[in-house]
């Protein structure tokens, strides 16, 4: 059940490279959101101003349920997101959310539970779960993000860790300046692998390359891979996941109209015909998609 609300901006913190961290007061959305879902934001100077007309989809970067806050990580890409990033704390924005089908987490519950159960079997079959220090089965999970694609992975990682998974993050960017999410991942007490195109921090090269190298290390075979980033990166992820037989989910971007599945404006190519990124996704099983 999605909500429409006028959310107060509680904080607006500029990070590097035109990316801002926005806190929005939206208690119902914070309470019901699942990782991978998004909010759809009206970016306009006034309620009766008609341009920009369409909402902007932004992933839920994290939630602070207690404070009733949704956190967003927004890159000023065009006029809508730049407007958003210029909002002063105290101003309000109109939100729809939480929208879309989120990541199917491991050991989670909720709408996707059926599929998650199926996964648990599959994970065990693949031998990917292994005993942790306490002897319990703690599945290993990779999250991989390129650029602003890191945004939805923090919320996901937090929930995965909370539900007992061992999570490792692979974070890629052009350079050290544009790396995102390091702080958040580190606070979750997980291993973070870093790759930069220019080598200014971490591995010098592509983040998927770095992940492939890690996969070659014995005992580092994940039960699940979650990825978000540019199309080229996801294409490469797809190949390594397919090769390694790793169950994999990706979050896609497409220009959106309604954000709720009604207008068919956000189609991507599914194996069995067009899929709606907003309602059938934005998170898809790799196998659902046709590339």
């Amino acid at each position, binding site marked *: *059940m*999605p909500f*429409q609300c006028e959310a107060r901006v509680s904080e607006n913190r500029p990070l590097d490279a035109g990316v801002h961290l926005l806190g929005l007061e939206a208690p119902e959305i914070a309470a019901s959101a699942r990782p991978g879902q998004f909010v759809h934001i*009206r970016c306009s100077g006034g309620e*009766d101003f*008609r*341009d*920009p*007309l*369409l*909402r902007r989809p932004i992933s839920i970067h994290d939630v602070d349920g207690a404070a009733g806050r949704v956190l967003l990580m927004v890159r000023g890409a065009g006029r809508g997101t730049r407007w958003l990033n210029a909002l002063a704390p105290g101003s309000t924005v109109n939100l*729809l959310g939480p929208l879309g089908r989120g990541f199917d987490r491991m050991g989670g519950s909720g709408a996707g539970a059926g599929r998650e159960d199926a996964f648990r079997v599959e994970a065990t079959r693949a031998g990917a779960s292994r005993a942790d220090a306490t002897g319990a089965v703690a599945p290993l999970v990779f999250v991989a993000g390129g650029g602003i694609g890191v945004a939805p992975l923090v919320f996901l990682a937090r929930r995965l860790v909370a539900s007992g998974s061992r999570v490792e993050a692979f974070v890629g960017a052009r350079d050290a300046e544009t790396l995102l999410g390091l702080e958040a991942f580190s606070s979750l007490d997980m291993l973070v692998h870093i790759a930069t195109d220019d080598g200014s921090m971490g591995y010098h090269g592509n983040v998927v390359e770095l992940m492939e190298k890690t996969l070659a290390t014995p005992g580092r075979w994940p039960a699940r891979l979650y990825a978000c980033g540019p199309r080229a990166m996801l294409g490469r992820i797809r190949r390594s996941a397919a090769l390694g037989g790793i169950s994999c989910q990706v979050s896609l971007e*497409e*220009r*959106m*109209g*309604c*954000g*709720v*599945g*009604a*207008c*068919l*404006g*956000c*189609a*991507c*190519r599914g194996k069995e*015909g*067009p899929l709606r990124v907003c*309602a059938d996704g934005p998170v898809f099983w790799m196998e659902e998609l046709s590339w």
Partner: protein
Amino acid sequence: MVNGAAANEGGRAASLEVMLAGIRLKNPVLVASGTFGYGREYAGWYDLNRLGGIMVKGTTLHPRQGNPSPRLVETPSGILNAVGLQNPGVDALIDGHLPFLRRFELAVIANIAGESVEEYAEVAAKLDREEGVSALEVNISCPNVRGGGLAFGTDPATAAEVIRAVKRHTRLPVIAKLSPNVTDIVAIARSVEEAGADAISLINTLVGMAIDIRARKPILGNIMGGLSGPAVRPVAVRMVWQVAQAVKVPVIGMGGIMTAEDALEFIMAGATAVAVGTANLVNPRAALEVIDGLGAFMNEQGIGDITELIGAALPEHIGRSWEGYDDY
């Protein structure tokens, strides 16, 4: 203030009820085809029973996969869409969606399209047998022959031919949905009226295009798309005003309606009902707000019955007509 009744200043409820080609609408606010899916997608946002009616996504005989992405581009106060009539086909509409829609008390208008006159007729015939369909809206703005470039809706004779064929295959009221991409909208309107259309809806989208200047190519997967949203409203109001004067059948006005004020422009231009389209994508509650706003306006103005406002700005009421293309 539900079901089309708005408390009047004096306490009397303002009536929003209108009759449209024999269909009683509890209020004149519909949602436009292609912008509201099959109702399902918005059922979570509010009670669909509040709507005057729903025009469902355009339906063809066979399923269609639609156009490649991108299918949408935002333009100043508007959008271009090139969805490509993606739909599961008329059988899936009947089996998959009509049962859901039958649960609500609102007019269900099936929007139909085809690549040939025969296909239109066949879709019409299939729907004629179905309970819960209030009317057929015939979209004559789609291609005659792919690649041929001549659309049914841009030639009066072809437009009439489609309407006649549909009429022969259904007892349901037939609404002809006109394309605005024509020199003379009145000629098309008269032609479909003569062919038996029970109502006319307009406007469909204006053909437009946007270019990605860095990639140096059109943005839309289909190169061109249909322009809708507030940007086109002045063109739509003008066409409704022209057509409403020229035909006797009722007109359904649409094109850029976001608020009750916008809807009232269409009603005063002669529309018996209006449809909210692109606005749904921006504000899921748009149609409801239009309905509430109509009631509020009537109370403010002391109007008891919305039918008093239909055509209020037509020549017969304002005492003058338009004298020509003397616009600057």
